[in-house]
């Protein structure tokens, strides 16, 4: 398989690169000065693209690679891949579900605790020497608060399981109600936001869910509510979110994703009721290795004409 060209647009994981290089002709697009020319030069050998949360495959890229057979994404979200076009062109698409579910759910709870109990802010308080001048103030209890989950898929269910260990009642909004789960269903996002203390965004990004967290939802969540976004930046109307936080209309936010990564609205840098992560939801050595292994296994299966392990298309 060493002659199979696999295009990787941006760095994702040294381990993944290493494993791909063992098996394929890995073409690292970020290392070349003239990217468009590079793609033209290698168009006939590139049979696979490695995507991730920031870089996928749009129609233009797909059209420029006539030998493209598969897009293997190093992520579970595949909003950056034109799935419809892939289907039309017979290009397979795989992602990395399950292996990262725990890490992302862990971050949702970690962010909730960090925001509500002001862990990052009070750490700053200690490091700046302010503790010597006086104690830190009261913070908001997390145990027992109502956790609302937007999207009760693998990650949403994992968040619910963890929150339940903190005696948090669980409420949710999903495309369809899941009566087998004993959680409180709300038929609209606004109703969910009105009836929970912490709202966790855990659904895929699609045309329907773009800006699903808008001003109405933010206002419903309210001055004591906390938004946790572990989905995609475009789930949230970001300027609305920023103004709500600055004006105190929203109690707090824990964010792992943003509209235009790695840019983060600078107005958030000076406020204490947010915790800002650099899209680190699945950034553990263990999980990234497991994700990489899954990408490799999907590619190997494809090129050996075996069934894909985690196909999306």
């Amino acid at each position, binding site marked *: 398989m060493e002659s199979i060209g696999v295009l990787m647009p941006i760095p994702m994981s040294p381990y993944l690169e290493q494993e791909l290089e063992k098996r394929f002709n890995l073409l690292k697009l970020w290392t070349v000065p003239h990217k468009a020319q590079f793609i033209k030069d290698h168009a006939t050998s590139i049979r696979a693209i490695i995507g991730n949360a920031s870089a996928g495959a749009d129609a233009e890229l797909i059209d420029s690679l006539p030998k493209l057979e598969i897009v293997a994404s190093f992520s579970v979200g595949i909003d950056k891949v034109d799935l419809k076009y892939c289907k039309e062109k017979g290009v397979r698409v795989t992602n990395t579900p399950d292996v990262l579910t725990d890490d992302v759910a*862990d971050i949702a709870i970690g962010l909730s605790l*960090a925001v509500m109990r002001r862990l990052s802010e*009070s750490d700053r308080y200690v490091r700046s020497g302010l503790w010597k001048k006086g104690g830190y103030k*009261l*913070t908001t209890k997390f145990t027992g608060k109502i956790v609302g989950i937007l999207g009760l898929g693998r990650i949403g269910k994992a968040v619910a399981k963890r929150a339940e260990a903190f005696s948090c009642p669980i409420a949710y909004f999903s495309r369809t109600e899941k009566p087998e789960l004993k959680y409180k269903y709300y038929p609209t996002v606004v109703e969910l936001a009105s009836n929970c203390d912490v709202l966790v965004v855990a659904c895929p990004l699609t045309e329907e869910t773009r800006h699903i967290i808008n001003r109405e939802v933010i206002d419903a969540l309210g001055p004591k509510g906390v938004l946790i976004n572990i989905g995609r930046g475009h789930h949230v109307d970001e300027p609305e979110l920023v103004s709500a936080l600055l004006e105190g209309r929203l109690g707090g936010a824990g964010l792992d994703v943003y509209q235009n990564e*790695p840019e983060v609205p600078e107005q958030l840098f000076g406020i204490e009721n947010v*915790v800002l992560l650099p899209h*680190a939801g699945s950034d553990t050595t263990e999980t990234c290795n497991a994700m990489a292994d899954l990408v490799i296994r999907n590619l190997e299966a494809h090129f050996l004409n075996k069934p894909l392990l985690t196909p999306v298309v």
Partner: protein
Amino acid sequence: MEFCLQIPTRQEAKMARLQFRDANEDDVPSEELPHLLLIHPPSSFTRLPSEICEKFRVLKAWESPLSLDQFLISHARSIQALLIRGFLMINTDILQQLPALKLIITISVGVNHIDMAECRRRGISVTNAGSVYSEDVADIAVGLYIDVLRKLSAADRYVRQGLWSSKGNYPFGSKLGGKRVGIVGLGSIGLEVAKRLEAFGCIISYNSRREKPTSSYPFYSIISELAANSDALIICCALTEQTHHMINKEVFASLGRDGVIVNVGRGAIIDEKELVKCLVSGKIRGAGFDVFENEPQVPEELFTLDNVVLSPHTAIFTPESLQSVKEVLIANVEAFFLNKPLVTPVMDE
């Protein structure tokens, strides 16, 4: 007579005077009410409940121009109850000056600031906060552990300095699932921590004074053995003579380079100087602290480390916990007056 006395700040004393008044001026003549001594104002977050003011004549030592010594001498025979926070050591010296003392109410859960042996000898009952703080403390313990493993606060600092744009992604953290967590002290707080971490896929074992027959978690009687079989230690036990500096060089070595320590107990359970050395030299992966040996002093070597999370002893400070401890305080006082069993007595163990 030597004891460590924390003088309330002028701010605290002023706030306390503004906050509460003796409610008993119009009721029973205050001379007939039993005397409750407060050496310091109640926490700046809470007022003394009116139920307390109705049942006691409250003596406020900090308001008196007398030194504490002299104040105790002048009221010695009348003080039946003492309400304390946790700053002052209630040792034999103070207890000797309070011959009528029958009840000590501490609003902390720890009783390391009280000479419990002397109280037992004198038949003085001691009540603490019971388990009202356990959820909040467990939340902080779990929050600190996730923060250390997943580098939440360090990454937040990174983003706020604009480094995500200029330097790229933040280094990887480590997964919680599958981590072997050793709980040191499986009391009310330890059990709440265990319950939470199990939901993250952590594997729980523990060390405690005695094995708990009701618990199915593996028990290690020797702390360094617990450490050798754990990826993290979460310190949830009381500070006593036995647990002082119990988490020491030997334990750090047994825990190993990938180990994490979280302390929500008392600073002095850990040999802090030794832990700082291990953190600086990479002999331990990281640590989360809500408590320190000499608060509010924090070893400054920690300020430049990204593998530690520092919390200024905030674990119990939520409105819910403070409300609950007020209710426990009132319930204990009422029980005391009705000669009924106290609600949260600190038991002999």
